[in-house]
């Protein structure tokens, strides 16, 4: 597979403030890429540079093997879905979707066929004469998507496309986005600050923090092998325990923090031979699982479990950590135990 989208040595500053700095970023054809990062990390900036709405101080943007850094947005073969949709309020659904094509001077018949094709894909048939404000949020989002896709761009860019929707619609549209991307076989770059969304959608995830790329990889890689403490904690579902609070676990000692995912701890009323004892503070029932919050050595831990086995609030329980799944961090970076092993380095 060839690389469909590339960014090289991009730097963007606003005044003295560094908003984005990345050495190299590449996405293959037909990839669903997700840019994940907290607020202010530079996600939108990255997307806007890709779209041509912002020009970088240095560096280049390459789409389909062609350097487009100097090209205006509409010549880049990119479609952009804005966070707030940015539909033209004075135009109907049909006219909104057709706009990029009318500008490009296609014939009316040609435009009509294509718009209807997309209306069909987006399940918007019958809505084409409505105005944006007569549509629900989810429908508006799909119109925005259709408008971004009408010119069959090589790259589809989406800036937090789901963040203005309520939870249920968000999950539906999430599946829908991925299906659409697969169906059309295009490269999508989706920006979000929601790690669950990122995990659910991404073939490739890029984590940004403070203008820098922290890690890039498949969801599996990022999940199981986060490069840094930040990446691990940002993906969530993990307990991070400072080494000072831990009793001797019989492993290497040159780490600052230990990370263990919430499903990798088991709880038991029988304390057995463990030194790790916690007090249950709160139990949340999620319908199929429980999240148990514990107090342990002055910090709080969370554990996900399928059954409680008689554990109640305020009970003292023993903690059993699956030592094969733990992560160790030093100076903010994960110690790559795959190579070194859990035992102290000789």
């Amino acid at each position, binding site marked *: 597979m060839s690389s469909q989208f590339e960014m090289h040595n991009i730097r963007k500053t606003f005044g003295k403030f560094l908003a984005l700095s990345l050495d190299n970023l590449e996405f293959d054809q037909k990839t669903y890429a997700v840019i994940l990062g907290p607020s202010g990390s530079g996600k939108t900036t990255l997307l806007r540079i890709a*779209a041509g*709405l912002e020009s970088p101080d240095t560096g280049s943007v390459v789409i389909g093997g062609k350097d487009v850094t100097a090209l*205006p*947005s*509409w*010549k880049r073969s*990119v*479609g*952009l879905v*804005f966070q*707030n949709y*940015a*539909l*033209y*309020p*004075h*135009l109907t659904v049909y*006219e909104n979707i057709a*706009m*990029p094509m*009318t*500008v*490009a*001077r296609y014939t009316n018949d040609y435009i009509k066929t294509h718009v209807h094709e997309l209306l069909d894909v987006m399940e918007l048939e019958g809505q084409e004469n409505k*105005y944006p404000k007569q549509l629900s949020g989810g429908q508006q989002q799909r119109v925005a998507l259709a*408008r*971004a896709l009408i010119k069959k761009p090589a790259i589809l860019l989406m800036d937090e496309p789901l963040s203005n929707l309520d939870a249920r619609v968000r999950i539906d549209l999430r599946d829908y986005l991925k299906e659409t991307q697969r169906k059309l076989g295009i490269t999508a770059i989706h920006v979000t600050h929601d790690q669950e969304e990122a995990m659910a959608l991404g073939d490739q995830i890029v984590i940004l923090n403070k203008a820098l790329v922290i890690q890039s990889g498949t969801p599996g890689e990022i999940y199981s092998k986060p490069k840094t403490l930040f990446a691990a904690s940002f993906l969530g579902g993990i307990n991070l325990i400072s080494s000072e609070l831990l009793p001797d676990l019989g492993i290497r000692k040159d780490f600052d923090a230990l990370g263990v995912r919430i499903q990798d701890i088991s709880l038991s009323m029988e304390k057995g031979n463990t030194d790790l004892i916690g007090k249950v503070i709160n139990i949340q029932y999620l319908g199929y699982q429980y999240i148990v919050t514990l107090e342990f050595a002055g910090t709080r831990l969370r554990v996900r479990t399928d059954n409680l086995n008689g554990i109640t609030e305020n009970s003292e329980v023993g903690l059993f950590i699956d030592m094969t799944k733990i992560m160790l961090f030093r100076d903010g970076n994960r110690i790559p135990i795959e190579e070194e092993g859990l035992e102290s380095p000789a």
Partner: protein
Amino acid sequence: MKSPNKRQATILVLPALIYLLIFGIYPMLQNFVLTFQSPDINGSIVWGISNYINAFKIYGLTQIFYNTFLYTLAVPLVDILLAIPLATFLKRLNKPYLLPIVLLSSFIPLVTGAVMWVFMLNPTNGFMYYIAKVDLFTSPWSIVLIDIWTSLPLATLIIYSGLKAIPPHIEEAAHMDGLIGTRKLLQVDLPYIKPSLLSATVLMVIFGSFTFDPIYVALSSSSPFAIMDISYLAYSLYETGGIIGQGQAAVLMTIMTVVSTGIAILFVRLSLRESARSRKIRFKFMPNREIPRKVAWFFVLLYLAFILLPFSWLVLESFKTLSEIISIPPVIIPSVVTLAGYFRSITVGQPYFISSLIVSLGTAFLVFFIGAPAAYSISRHRTGGLKFISLILFVYSLPTVIFMIPMIGIIKSVGLLNSWLGLIISYPVFVMPITIWMLYNFYSTFPKHLDEAANMDGMSVYGSFYRVILRLSGDGISVTLLYAFIIAWGALIFPLAFAYTPFNMNFLFPSGAQTVTIFIGGTIGHEAFNYGELSAASVISLIPSILLIYFARKRIDKLWRVGGTVG
């Protein structure tokens, strides 16, 4: 049952409501009654329709109707056609200092503007000598020209404000779609700012149909019927025609009222309601290219030349000696600079300037005390729903001249004819509607949590208005007040009708209230009129306007933003 909050909110609009009923609605009805009254041979009043019959026999009426029609249609049409490109260029060039300069001619007294043009277009002594030695004032197009010059900046301001308020994401969406330049203007910008376009059009229609001041000034150098319109005819019938003239004037005023009501309904509809969406035309063959900055600059400079030329000529005139003023061919740059005009205009014009200053200040404050609470109440508490704001827009779209005859009755009955107070109580009828409208829009953008917080703290509606809102609306109010001052400063019809001598310069027993507009507009072409003195007085009359534009330069486009914030 009304909550105490509702009741207090209602009380805040009452003064404005009562005022508008007495000074706005009553005169309208009174005019209608007057149309049926005429004197018989013995001079006693009889009822009948003879006024209607006679009014249509007035000599030159066809020309007058034609002129009125011309002013009402040509002015808005040309204004909008010129304002759209100008606003677009201003936005494209994005130079903050350009807007205030462009705005100059809309914010000065109409009389002063007209005087500038009369000077400039004089084919023997004016700049016109160098262009074509013809007298434009033989044709009503001269008045159209002055009207356009006066109103174009306001139309531009409204459209420019609309353009500036287009959200960035829409601009960027258009950019992504590849829409730029003229194509984007026609396909995205103009449809998006439709409310502003409609407001600008209707305001210009009202402006054109009211035309009075330039006619008053230009009549000195024109043949009587060439430029007159119905507004002016009604005034002159009343002024010179005694009781017969009054009845016929009332007929014309009633006709104007009906027409204006039509316009008003249109205005209210368009301003307050979402208009029906129309089919879009395809603009396939419009150039999809950004206007080069050089081209934009070229046109903006042309516009600036048009707007500034009369100002420059006036200022030059004001420093010339008499011999240079009347020399043929006219002198452009004075070889000797003299301040004689200024000294004379200050000495001779003193009583007029004092009257204008006091009356305008008084009006601004009266308008503030009555108008600000009302604007706040209708904007925040929706008092009177659409009815009150519709009344405001309605009164705004009535020509000032129609209030004149009944109001003389009111002012006479309280013994205030020819006095400052008489003018102060009558001016708000044409000053207050626009100020309430501006403040209404201003308060619509005001953060709501402020009065909610005040309310939670146990403050009443009065409390939150007087103790919280007023203190925080300093900038909106000061600009609006200054604008009110300027409208009052430039008033002409009311002082012509309600005042007949200059101030007697006795502050203990003041009498006389003729204003600077009468001093400027009335001296031109009369007896021993002195160009230097007149032009100097005209320059002085610009001072408040320049101050307004200077103080408001940063937020001026926000105060005239219409449509978007409504409803």
